[in-house]
């Protein structure tokens, strides 16, 4: 049916990893690129401990599906969220994992799975795991190339405090590069 022209994305992790913010930034970028976009997220207690979630639906037509049902792209930054959501992905859907926290990677078609120790890279190379979510954005875009990396960077900078501009730029770039590595393999 027609609604399949809408792409569904889910960003997931535990509270504090900033997956909601990264979903907003990605949605900002899609907006900028002229897509129709709907972004939603988990709220309340749900959003604190356990699994936190940001979701995007986008496409060229009017979006009247307001809920992500089977993500075409799933980002999972924690074991829990990975286990919980991997079964929802669409037949061709891809899963992007932080292998630092996800010790048990999902058992799916290898072609659909992209993993890297995102938090570890953030800790080691950027000095703080707070940048993991932005690093993940770069990583996602590196894999999917859904948006222009420049637009994505602008969107990031519009949502973070000025004193962190540099670190975030670096994180975004580093994530993108990490994806490139995978592709080469």
């Amino acid at each position: 049916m027609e609604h399949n022209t809408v792409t569904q994305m889910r960003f997931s992790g535990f509270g504090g990893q900033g997956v909601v913010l990264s979903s907003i930034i990605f949605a900002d970028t899609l907006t900028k690129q002229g897509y129709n976009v709907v972004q939603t997220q988990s709220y309340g207690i749900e959003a604190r401990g356990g699994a936190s979630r940001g979701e995007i639906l986008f496409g060229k037509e009017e979006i009247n599906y307001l809920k992500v049902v089977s993500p075409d792209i799933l980002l999972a930054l924690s074991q829990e969220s990975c286990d919980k959501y991997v079964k929802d992905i669409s037949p061709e859907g891809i899963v992007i994992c932080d292998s630092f926290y996800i010790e048990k990677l999902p058992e799916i078609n290898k072609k659909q799975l992209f993993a890297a120790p995102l938090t570890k890279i953030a800790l080691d190379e950027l000095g703080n795991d707070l940048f993991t979510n932005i690093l993940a954005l770069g990583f996602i875009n590196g894999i999917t190339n859904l948006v222009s990396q420049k637009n994505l960077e602008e969107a990031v900078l519009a949502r973070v405090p000025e004193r962190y501009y540099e670190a975030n730029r670096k994180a975004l770039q580093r994530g993108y590069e990490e994806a490139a590595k995978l592709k080469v393999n």
Partner: protein
Amino acid sequence: MSTAYKVQINRKWCKNCGICLAFCPKNVFSFDEKKKLQIVNEIQCSGCLMCEKRCPDMCMKIIREEE
């Protein structure tokens, strides 16, 4: 006969908040790389119970063991 203490963490409930760690007078705890609470110095424990009583998640238990 000296007194020793066994430090038990109920991992299912512990949220690794670090409150026990921060105020333990004997530095019995530390965090690992993933900010997970570790018992690193059980032997030093004086049984003051500050960790057990302050734990917001009721998951710390200090057991007194006569040796």
